[in-house]
Each structure stands twice: as C-alpha cells, then as structure tokens.
C-alpha cells in the first residue's frame, strides 16, 4: 500500500516535471521542473529497492547538477540581440512553433520506431520482482571494490579530468589584441 502510493506519487512527479520542461518558456522554470523530475526519479529508485541509487540521485543531481545549471543560467543571462552577425533574424532561444513542430514530429517517429523494435522482444509476460527490499549498500560496495574496480578507478580519473578541464575552459583569460 505504501509502496504503491510512493510509486504513484513519484511517477506523477517525474512525468509532470519532464512534460513541463518541454512546455515552459522560461529557462529558470525549466530547471526547477527538472529538479522536481529528479526528485521523482529518486522516489522511483526507492520503489525499486535501490536505496543507494536514490541517495546518489538526490546528492549528485538535485544537489550538484541543478545548482551548477542555475549558476550557469544566472552567469549567462541577459542576451538581447535578435539578429545574428549576418543580419538575419534568429529563432527565439526557447523555440517557436516551427521548432516545436519538428520536435513533435521527431518524437512521434522515434516513439513509433522504439515501440516497433521493442514490441517483439517484450511480447511475453513481464517478469515478477525477485529482489526483496534488503539494503543494497553493502553488496554494492563489495561489487564495486572487487569486480568493477577498474571502472571505478577510471571514473575517478575521468572526474578529475572533468574538474580540471572545466576550470581551464571557463577561466577568464586575457584577450590578445594585436
């Protein structure tokens, strides 16, 4: 009963957040709706018995990525020019009817293709859940430190590279005038 309620709540939050990200015209509002969607996905992870994934989702996405996005939006706001450097009128930054039509068309086509190619593989009865809701942190840590130790180390190097790369790229450098 509690599990079903949590699932329904999380599903509604996730889907509504994602649809509002598509619908809204305000970039800041889109970011906040994406935050709601991430909270819903954390709830879905909790329904799936993935407690560590739910916590990681909240910490990394809701705490890290969304804040980073909000900082970037605030640092890059206030662009007013309506024409590009060739003097042609630009498409508005959050899209107009034409881009939305293209997006809807592409969404319908990709949805049809996905349904078509997955329907044959999914025709059987869906499997039943076979994992009891026991804590996964200990098993996950054991697997991560034994079977997947190489991927773990490579991801740490990747994160270090991303950190240094982001700092180097966004560093304000002195323009060279000749």
């Amino acid at each position: 009963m509690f599990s079903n309620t949590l699932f329904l709540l999380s599903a509604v939050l996730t889907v509504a957040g994602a649809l509002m990200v598509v619908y809204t015209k305000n970039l800041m509002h889109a970011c906040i709706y994406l935050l709601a969607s991430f909270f819903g996905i954390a709830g879905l992870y909790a329904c799936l018995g993935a407690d560590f994934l739910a916590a990681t989702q909240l910490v990394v996405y809701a705490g890290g990525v969304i804040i980073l996005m909000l900082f970037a939006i605030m640092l890059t706001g206030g662009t007013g020019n309506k024409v590009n450097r060739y003097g042609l009128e630009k498409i508005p930054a959050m899209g107009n009817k034409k881009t939305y039509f293209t997006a809807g068309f592409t969404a319908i086509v990709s949805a049809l293709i996905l349904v078509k190619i997955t329907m044959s593989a999914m025709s059987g009865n869906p499997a039943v859940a076979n994992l009891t809701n026991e804590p996964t942190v200990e098993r996950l840590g054991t697997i991560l430190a034994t079977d997947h130790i190489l991927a773990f180390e490579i991801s740490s190097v990747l994160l270090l590279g991303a950190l240094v790369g982001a700092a180097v790229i966004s560093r304000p450098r002195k323009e060279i005038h000749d």
Partner: protein
Amino acid sequence: MINLWAYLGISFILFICGIMVMIARKNIIALLLGVELILNAAALNFAAYTKFSNGNLDGHIMSLFIIIIAAAESAVGLGIVIRFFQLRESIHIDDASTLQN
C-alpha cells in the same frame, strides 16, 4: 500491480521529453537539460531491469556510472557554455557555427 511495464513507460516518456527538448530549444543550457533527461531515462531502465530481471546488482553499477558520467559531462558542458558566452555574448546554438573565433 506495478510491474516492469510501468517503469519502462515512465522511462520512455522521459526519453521522448528529452528528445523534444533537445530539438525544440535553441538555448545551449536547455539542450543540456534534455541530455540530463535522456541519461536519467537510461539509468532508470537499468535499475528497473535489475529489479525485474535478475537479482544481481550490475544494473545498479551501470546506473551509478551513468550518474557519474552525467555529472562530469554537465560540469564540462557548462564550462564551455560560460566560455562561449564570454566570447560571443550569446548562448544561442546558431551562434556556435564556427570552430575558430
């Protein structure tokens, strides 16, 4: 009863929403929002299949690495966006049409 199809449907809707955001918007940060939606759809699929298909936790490991990659991608992407704004005073994707200056 909640089965695999419910999670796959939610993941499907997330993926389609990400595709639509990435095509409809012309703002680079909004494109990154769409990428985050798509990556979340993939991670949710891995976790759902772990629960409903087999009991081992390799799917959770995959979701964890997807979250790590998404965080790194987001940091570097936003750094590039801020640098691009310093150069062009714009975050419109159509202004990013040349490789050099």
